[in-house]
């Protein structure tokens, strides 16, 4: 009897927990100005120009979504603003939706007509009308593509310099995309590793894995929304604490998932297909619970909202990308070393290989599975939080990522550890680098096509062991 009580309480526990989390989140959504105040805490985009007239000013807070920015001539020091330049905003199909002329301080504000919500998730091209620039100048960029993921105003900067060597060509672009792709790959690898480990040890194809990713992003956001900043030695470490919290709380969430739902199902002897469908139900349930508490709008963390990129020639790298990459790589190396060299890691791989045999050799299979769930969910949650740092998030970030996670794991070989990582890097780099040749809207299509083609040629995946599968 008390076993059943325990199970019921295990099911109720996460819901209570989510309620707690939800109060933190809904507290944030109750004050719509939270985003704006948070953004003004962030370092101004062009702080080194503070003493000059060429400084990015925020547009007035109003209901409309604006694209605002600045045109500066960088040949002078201090930089001088460039007035009377026409700037256009076009949507993906090339229709003009707004234009503006830069003022005497070089700044411009383009209000986008209509509800901000209708712009979310779309990409817009912001371009400078070359004819209106002063002669003998050449903007380093005339076209910027910006993806609107949040309903806050979007900053853009057009640095203007001497007429340069012209377009740097595909090589620079390829390097730039490789950097973006590597950062994305590391996060994808973290998420895929969890899915692959869980599949390997339990055989479960977990359609709710995307929700573990979103969970991490939401935990970090809840920490971010606590009053005040968390400071260590004068430095604002709120987001670091947030990511760590995402890691730990997601691990706990993974344990609750396993102990409250999947372990009882395994005990009942539920078939894998039945469990797969249960995971679909869990995915729908969790996704809507997230939206219930966190709302549908896209969000950003207060720190790292706007930072100035480092420029190497025409390459731009942000410190944020570097930090995310290093942290992600570190976690990946640590996890794989643990799996490779520790007793527990060996036990995990043994269970993935053959549960019955490893049970016979004295390995506590249920304990290993429990730890795999904790580890896998923690990795996924951390990936979600870091993904939120790099590109913002909404309640279905994990669900949108789920197919790419599947693609990465299947590509590398379902259930293999190295396969998941290799697959994630292939998919991550592929999605970014294909935008060199095909429109960006097809990048996921390309990655999913790769999955199908690989299955045709090598059904067991890149690193999977060849076995007869039907």
């Amino acid at each position, binding site marked *: 009897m008390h076993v059943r009580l325990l199970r019921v309480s295990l099911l109720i526990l996460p819901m209570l927990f989510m309620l707690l989390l939800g109060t933190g989140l809904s507290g944030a959504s109750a004050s719509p100005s939270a985003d704006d105040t948070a953004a003004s805490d962030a370092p101004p985009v062009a702080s080194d120009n503070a003493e000059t007239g060429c400084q990015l000013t925020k547009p007035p807070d109003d209901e409309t979504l604006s694209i605002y920015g600045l045109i500066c001539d960088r040949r002078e020091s201090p930089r001088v603003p460039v007035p009377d330049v026409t700037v256009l905003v076009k949507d993906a199909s090339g229709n003009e939706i707004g234009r503006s002329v830069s003022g005497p301080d070089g700044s411009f504000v383009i209000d986008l007509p209509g509800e901000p919500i209708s712009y979310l998730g779309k990409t817009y091209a912001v371009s400078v009308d070359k004819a209106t620039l002063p002669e003998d100048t050449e903007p380093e960029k005339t076209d910027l593509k910006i993806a609107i993921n949040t309903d806050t105003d979007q900053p853009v900067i057009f640095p203007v310099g001497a007429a340069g060597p012209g377009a740097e060509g595909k090589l620079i672009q390829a390097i730039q995309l490789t950097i973006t792709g590597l950062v994305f790959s590391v996060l994808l690898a973290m998420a895929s590793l969890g899915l692959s480990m869980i599949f390997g040890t339990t055989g479960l194809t977990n359609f709710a894995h995307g929700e573990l990713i979103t969970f991490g992003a939401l935990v970090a956001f809840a920490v971010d929304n606590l009053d005040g900043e968390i400071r260590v030695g004068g430095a604002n470490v709120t987001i670091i604490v947030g990511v760590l919290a995402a890691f730990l709380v997601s691990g706990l969430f993974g344990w609750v998932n396993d102990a409250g739902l999947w372990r009882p199902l395994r005990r009942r002897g539920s078939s894998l297909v039945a469990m797969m469908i249960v995971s679909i*139900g869990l995915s729908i349930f969790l996704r809507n619970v997230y939206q219930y508490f966190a709302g549908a709008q896209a969000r950003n963390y207060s720190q790292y909202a706007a930072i100035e990129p480092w420029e190497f020639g025409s390459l731009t790298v942000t410190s944020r990308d570097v930090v995310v990459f290093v942290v992600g790589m570190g976690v990946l190396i640590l996890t794989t070393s643990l799996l490779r060299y520790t007793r527990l890691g060996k036990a995990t791989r043994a269970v993935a290989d053959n549960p019955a045999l490893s049970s016979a050799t004295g390995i506590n299979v249920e304990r290993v599975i429990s730890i795999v769930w904790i580890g896998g969910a923690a990795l996924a949650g951390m990936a979600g939080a870091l993904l939120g740092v790099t590109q913002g998030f909404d309640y279905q970030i994990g669900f949108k990522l789920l197919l790419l996670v599947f693609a990465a794991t299947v590509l590398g070989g379902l259930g293999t550890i190295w396969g998941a990582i290799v697959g994630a890097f292939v998919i991550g780099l592929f999605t970014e680098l294909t935008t060199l040749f095909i429109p960006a809207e097809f990048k*996921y299509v390309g990655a999913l096509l790769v999955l199908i083609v690989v299955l045709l040629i090598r059904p067991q995946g890149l690193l999977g062991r060849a076995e007869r599968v039907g």
Partner: protein
Amino acid sequence: MDFHNLLTLSLQQALGPTAVIYALAAIGLNVHFGYTGLLNFGQAGFMMVAGYGMVFVATEWGLSLWLGTLVGLVLTVILALLLGLPTLRLRADYLAIVTIAAAEIVRQTIGAAKFSDKFGGQDGLTGFIQPFRDANPFSGTKGIPGVVTWSAFDFWVMTVGWLLVALSCVVVWLLMRSPWGRVLKSIREDEDAVRSLGKNVTSYKMQALIIGGLFGALAGFMTALRSASIGPSFFATDVTFFAYTVLLIGGAARVLGPVVGSIIFWFLISALGIFFSQATSGTDPLIPASIMDSTQASLMRFIFLGLGLMLLMIFRPQGIFGDRRELAIDAR
């Protein structure tokens, strides 16, 4: 709380055009999953290809919708062949992942801005409905006055739709009592045993995939006709998941399972939606706004849907009519 209104509107949904669409989609899944054990998570892709095929023929070339349906059916067969060739030899979970990926490939490609001059991008296509509207023999509102009524157009869609459902059920019933159907069921139970009897399992699976996809195509046609338009958002991944829920409520591997499932599913979804929307509206709502506002109320039905799907699969995987012994679903 206006219970009369709640029951009336829910009944309207449960018998209305939406229920028809999901019944047809679930009949297709029944052939795939219920009878053959194939985990097709890309039913929305089949629906989309067929629906767009029909509409495209009418809007782009100005040809009749009849010819459009033919094109839609041919395209569905082609999609089934393309999907089946790489995956039917693989384990069940591979098929699940590949079909869900394929449905998303189809959706993102058709909805892309690049092809918006052909397929209308995210806005989709309209302006093909007139011939179908002209064929409508009904006028005014139809139904039982005071209990449940539909507009003449909805009633026309329902008439065509439920006729298709009835026809599909007869076809499935005839197929599954034939020797061919018995082979499908035995593939679901033990693939290796069937293979050892000299049957070409992959070929049978492919036939099942095509036939189930064709029922999905009918659902796609009805989706376009019901809304008088077609767009990528009609065919999101969740459509397939809902169709699975419909199938599992009624009971997989039963001819009438999807039909009953669809009626119950849409009655419950609609009743939950109306209940929570009423409970949070008005000056003195039943549930205070600090706990739930109207946006959150609209999510409650999906929260219950997810929970319901989990509990159904755990405690009664055979649904209402299914037979647990017949359906020891394990395709691994």
